[in-house]
């Protein structure tokens, strides 16, 4: 058995491909897997938005009579924060790809700060709405509001954990150029969370 180990690549690669085609193919597979994963998660959020559409369609008025209005200013600011975090992450990723890895930790830090700010503001919104008398258990309006935004916030937390895991070596001064693909896949997740938020902002707060 051991004689078979490490005998090198079994499939001989065609010579016209550029260097290290193996790594590039692994990257493409990982990218595909991530895309499929985000597709499945899109279906999950689609199910939640579908539910929102159904209960809203059932309700004679929306918001139901007697329920407080949701704020719009702070959530709008939050939307900008999250979009900004996507932009900074994209910037950082571009630096990493083009070989200017020293600029990457700064952009990553900006992304994480914006993400944490988003969460802080979101908690503030929950608390103020809760003080205004809207609770998850008081009616369907509260159920939709807290249910959808809390579930999204869990994804922001997951995204921050992933970015944090990248930040540890990045802030320790390690050059992450070799881990570019890992960073890119994490960024895909972060952008996904942002896009979901934009849809949530428009449906839950604006419409």
């Amino acid at each position: 058995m051991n004689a078979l180990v490490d005998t090198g690549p079994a499939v001989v690669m065609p010579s016209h491909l550029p260097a290290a085609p193996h790594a590039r193919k692994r990257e493409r597979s990982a990218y595909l897997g991530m895309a499929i994963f985000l597709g499945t998660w899109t279906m999950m959020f689609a199910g939640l938005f579908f539910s929102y559409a159904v209960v809203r369609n059932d309700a004679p008025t929306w918001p139901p009579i007697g329920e407080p209005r949701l704020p719009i200013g702070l959530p709008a600011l939050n939307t900008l924060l999250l979009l900004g975090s996507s932009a900074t992450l994209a910037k950082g990723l571009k630096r990493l790809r083009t070989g200017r890895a020293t600029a990457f930790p700064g952009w990553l830090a900006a992304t994480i700060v914006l993400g944490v700010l988003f969460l802080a503001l979101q908690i503030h919104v929950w608390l103020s709405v809760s003080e205004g008398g809207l609770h998850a258990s008081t009616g369907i309006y509260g159920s939709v509001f807290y249910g959808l935004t809390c579930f999204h916030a869990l994804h922001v937390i997951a995204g921050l954990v992933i970015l944090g895991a990248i930040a540890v070596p990045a802030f320790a001064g390690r050059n992450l150029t070799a881990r570019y693909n890992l960073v890119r896949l994490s960024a895909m997740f972060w952008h996904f969370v942002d896009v979901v938020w934009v849809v949530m902002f428009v449906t839950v707060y604006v419409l």
Partner: protein
Amino acid sequence: MSTHDEAHDSHGGGEHEEQHIHPEPTSFIRKYVFSTDHKVIAKQFIWLGLCWLAIGGTMAMMIRWQLANPGKPFPILGGLVFGASGGVVSPASYTSLFTMHGTIMIFFAITPIMIGGFGNFCIPLMIGARDMIFPLLNALSFWFMVLSSCVLVGSFFVPMGAAAAGWTNYPPLSVNIGTPGLGQTMWVLGIFLAGTSTIMGAINYITTVIRLRAPGMGYFKMPLTVWGLWLTAILNALFVPVLGSALILQFMDRVLGTHFFVAGAFVKGGGDPLLYQHLFWIFGHPEVYILILPAWGVISDLIPFFARKPAYGYKLSVFAMSMVCVLSALVYGHHMFTTSMSPLLGQGFMVLTMIISVPAEILFLNWLHTMWHGAIRTPPPMMFALGVVFVFGLGGLTGLYLATISTDLYLHDTYFVVGHFHLTMAAAVFLGSFASIYFWFPKMFGRQMNMGLAKLHFWLSFIPINVVFCIMLAVGLGGMQRRLYDPSVYTTFQSLQSLNVWISRFAYLLFFGQVFFVYNFVYSIFRGEKASENPWEVGTLEWTIPSPPPHHNYDKIPLVVTGPHEFNNPAVLKATGRDWIAQDVPIPGDLPAESQSA
């Protein structure tokens, strides 16, 4: 073992991923427990699934016992399981039993055996890969299934017992008012974890088939098993998350006190119990095809293998399976005809449902055409495959009455429905699983199962399973509703009681017939006759390597030049004297391999 070094080296398919040979782990834990080898994970899934199958089957026996002998203590196990009621199945336990029977069979028996087990075993071997593309994710998928199994087992031991809202888990039964207690919440959590496991598997399967097919293995050279499993994975990736969203909302309703599924009068603005049914069946209808597609794929291969003929209409079969997948997403409303949906909408769902018979019929005719004028061999895998064709035909035909609104209004929630879905997704998948186990057992364990016992097992499964579910159709036509604790107390159903007793008798026969399988399976793993490389004389790639395959499957990734079912090709017969040819061997007289695969 046949490889074609020259053709291999000059092959120029740039899209094929390079796969290193990793050393086989040596410690027991890494080799058999926390393994990332797809063959080990497949066996783990199959063991898990078989254990759950036994538990779910025992529950079915308890249900049948109560229906045949209402109020009598259940023999042997009764005192242990239903101690509080003196061994008698109490109404509350009965509700829990049919709930958990359905849940266990669907999410913890069929899914692990066919999708987790044979999906893992067959996909890399049949497409000529060394492993799944994400081996760690694969192992994680199995361990999530174990975790969710633990949650489900635990739910039996909490106050007020396991879930009891039916496997469909409809509100208002499934909200806190209908079924209080931790058991129902643990059900929600357990199914969510099982769904997570399934999604992980699906991502892996889809990517593996796209990225790791051996050079020359075009999509239309893949065995139909792989097609079935791949389409299953796509459906899983798309629709299990929708169940996930329903479970998240239900979890919030039960734990955080939200009101998504709580009916209107108590709630400002109004939650909607029907919303759950929509979400559930958007997932649920694709799910029934998720359960049957792997079995369809497997028997679409087994029939040409044992009829010694190329599959009739291979591409048409692929097309039919794909069409079924597309249509399965568009017909969920037929589960909800009695929820006062708009008649126009109902008719749309009815027509779309009826259209599914077209691709299903294409598959069916392809199977029959494949056998037509074939030199049929009938070892146990083929017997089970033919059994699938029979019960699926029967189940499919009864589906027409449930798809038609006017007949469904009468048959809805009767034993006719129970008979129908058991024939299609229980009996067909049950027989399909055994077809797969008997067929791939030699490759998995390097030994053969006993053919005589296997044939006995077939008849003791095939006859009772048909009798049980066909009588259920008749009882349902007589009007008996499903989920009744004791039908004999209703004057209307007293005339049906003797039929109920007969269903139970044949159900016991079915249950005890499985003893022959259990004995055969366990005995053969250790003491079975050594199997050769290719005992069934078929040409798909997994049969070109030793049984059981080495850790890395293929010493050299094969170059595929031939279709999966090239039987009785005159050129091959003339050149080799055999009626089959492996997928990595060119047919004599054909163009050289490299110009074929270009």
